[in-house]
């Protein structure tokens, strides 16, 4: 009986871990063609503003850069920075909380621009947010 309880507890913990990891998104279809990474990091307990930023980022990509995403020119990362398995990538992009960043790839190097201030100041108007992010991504893809 005791063994069964331990087994059930372990299984429930495993499912909990899977559920948290399941929230992460990494779409990177062709590293050879990759020109730009769009990264959004978030914490485990999220507020509405943080969720809205993620939704607006996804919408921006879907409505304006879906073909670039499919071909691998653009990569999208949505990552929980508080999960242990994401520690390395979170530290790499200096993301310890909600963070929006775009990284331009050139000659094997990366140049990252932090857009977190932009994200939190513009998210109250999704249309403006999407339009401004679209302009920023378009500029970086040139």
């Amino acid at each position, binding site marked *: 009986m005791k063994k069964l309880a331990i087994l059930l507890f372990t299984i429930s913990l495993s499912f909990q871990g899977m559920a948290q990891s399941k929230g992460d998104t990494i779409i990177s279809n062709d590293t050879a063609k990759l020109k730009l990474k769009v990264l959004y990091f978030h914490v485990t307990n*999220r*507020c509405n503003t943080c969720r809205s930023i993620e939704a607006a980022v996804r919408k921006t990509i879907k409505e304006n850069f879906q073909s670039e995403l499919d071909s691998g020119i653009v990569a999208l990362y949505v990552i929980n920075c508080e999960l242990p398995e994401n520690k390395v990538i979170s530290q790499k992009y200096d993301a310890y*909380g909600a963070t929006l960043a775009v990284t331009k790839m050139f000659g094997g190097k990366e140049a990252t621009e932090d857009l977190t201030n932009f994200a939190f100041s513009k998210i109250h108007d999704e249309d403006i947010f999407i339009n401004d992010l679209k302009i920023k991504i378009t500029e970086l893809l040139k």
Partner: protein
Amino acid sequence: MKRATSISVFLIGFVMLFVVAACNNSTDKKVSDASDSLKASKDTTAPQKTSKDTSTVKSTQETATIKTTDIADKPVVKLYNFYITNRCAACIAIEEATTKTLNTYFATEVKQGRIKRQILNVDDDANKTVSEKYQVFGSGLIITRVFKGKETTADLTGAGFKYAKNKEEKFIELLKKQISDYLN
């Protein structure tokens, strides 16, 4: 003889109890001092309307020993912690880290009235004017330098969300630098 010894022991014990009690009182005072300073900074930040201006007068009166001309010749730094009604952990962490920064590094400037802080709910109609002025419609941390009628504003919202919860020391370092720059 035995009686004299027991009286001596009793007296020593009494004196020691007195000393211990005195020590405890001084610890209480420190705690209450700390909470008072926190309270004072909260008071200057209390949701305003006209309290924004009166807090200036109040804090200046409280520190009567400081020459008003000295303060008038120096920049004033205003901090605004904006939040929405349903707050998340990161938003609360930003407010707490801001309080910690002010209490640790700028207690004197807060008392002098050179730093004024407000913690405002953007969902409250009373705060609409100030939140619109700084274009903040959700959680935000705005720092403004006011000197000779001119305002310069820095937005530390991004830094707050990035660091305040899980890398507080970095957030405090950035905030401390920004405030120090604006005080000069």
